[in-house]
């Protein structure tokens, strides 16, 4: 076995996904990357909000209150999402999709109902045997958390294949594994050049999405505070480090929601760290930017 380096990139998860593996010979590395890309594509197919054949698509077409059987992976992501929603009293809430459809940020799904604006994460029930039940009419978007989960699964596959150093990057949802420290860089508005932001060993890094420009040309935040359903502060930007990418991605939404007390508590509970960038003030540790 040699210490060869293999890098591959493919379009998937609505972004360009990069895999980098070291410590495997070319044949094994190529095979491991194929397996990892295949798993990522499967997770996309299962958890896409856009595809009517996904587990979410089937859930949105079922009758309210009927348990729908989903893939074990979808069930696991639901479990993580509801756990983080509960821990943050709904600042992270995967049921904000109806608001995002209304804002034009998600397409209207094929669904048998009009969502109840008062429906929240607690109306999504995991009823065992991989079945999910919606207690009220609502739409679920697993969005970034599914992307983070796909990154985690890809890393697990590459570790199991025997790679010694790994980096998986799905458009900013990043996880590195291996003994060596890796530098993660951020690109800034001010120029094309990237600046080193942090060094990590065996960790996941996620960042919040930037603002988008609405029909009126004004910038607004993509993310909503899951509890209030109002857009978060568009001048803030968050980077979170956690041991798993699924957690790092969800916590970016929690911190963007702006309730510092809840954010600090969640960071501690999930053993994560964050930096917040506030326009005009620069980088701040979470808690200082309230």
């Amino acid at each position: 076995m040699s210490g060869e380096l293999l890098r591959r990139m493919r379009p998937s998860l609505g972004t360009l996904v990069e895999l980098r593996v070291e410590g495997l010979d070319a044949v094994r590395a190529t095979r491991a990357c194929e397996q990892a890309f295949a798993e990522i594509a499967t997770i996309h197919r299962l958890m896409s909000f856009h595809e009517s054949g996904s587990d979410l698509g089937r859930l949105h077409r079922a009758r309210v209150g009927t348990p729908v059987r989903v893939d074990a992976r979808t069930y696991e992501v639901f479990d993580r999402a509801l756990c983080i929603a509960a821990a943050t009293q709904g600042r992270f809430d995967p049921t904000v999709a109806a608001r995002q459809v209304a804002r034009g940020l998600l397409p209207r799904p094929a669904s048998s109902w009009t969502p109840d604006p008062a429906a929240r994460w607690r109306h999504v029930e995991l009823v065992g045997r991989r079945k999910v039940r919606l207690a009220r009419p609502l739409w679920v978007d697993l969005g970034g958390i599914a992307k983070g989960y796909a990154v985690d699964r890809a890393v697990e596959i590459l570790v199991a294949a025997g790679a010694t150093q790994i980096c998986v990057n799905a458009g900013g949802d990043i996880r590195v594994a291996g003994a060596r420290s890796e530098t993660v860089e951020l690109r800034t508005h001010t120029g094309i050049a990237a600046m080193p932001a942090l060094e990590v060993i065996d960790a996941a890094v996620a960042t919040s999405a930037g603002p988008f420009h609405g029909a009126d040309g004004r910038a607004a935040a993509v993310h909503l505070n899951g509890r209030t359903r109002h857009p978060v502060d568009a001048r803030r930007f968050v980077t979170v480090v956690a041991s798993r990418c699924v957690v790092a991605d969800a916590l970016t939404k929690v911190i963007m929601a702006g309730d510092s007390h809840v954010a600090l508590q969640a960071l501690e509970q999930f053993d994560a760290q964050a930096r917040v960038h506030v326009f005009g003030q620069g980088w701040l540790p979470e808690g200082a930017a309230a």
Partner: protein
Amino acid sequence: MKVRWLLPFGIVATPIAHVAFAAQYMTVEQAQRAAFPDASEFVLRVLDATSLAPSGGAPQGWAPKAWQARAGGRELGWLMVDQVIGKTELITYAVAVDAHGAVKSVEILDYREAHGGEVRLAGWRQQFVGKTGADLLELNKDIKNISGATLSCRHVTEGVQRLLKVYNAALRGAAE
């Protein structure tokens, strides 16, 4: 998990995206081998203005390349290589199509920051992307993603659609 933050508190810069990098993932030869391991030869086909027209026009400077993969005189499929600009990156990608016209794989070959000239080139290319209503409709249908495609992914997806039109018009069933 170990973390060392390199961001000094108070530094003012508005980050918009993660990880700028430049990388070559595969050479054209590696992409050919990966897509068609049984091929004995790859024959370059020159795509002239007539072959490119069905994709929505052949603007000056657009020069995708196509190779036919063969084994003992039998066609195994085609590998097409083109470039798109993502946001500010120049992305070279390859689409492999089997002998029945089904897409076997889409691989990024090269990804790097674009220079001024290339970004200007991208300006007109984006005009020509999805120019007609029919094209736009098709793209919306075909772009499937979890939470909104990034510009880079969208442009690659559009590029793949464009190459498939070229394939259908000029390469499909071609004997030579």
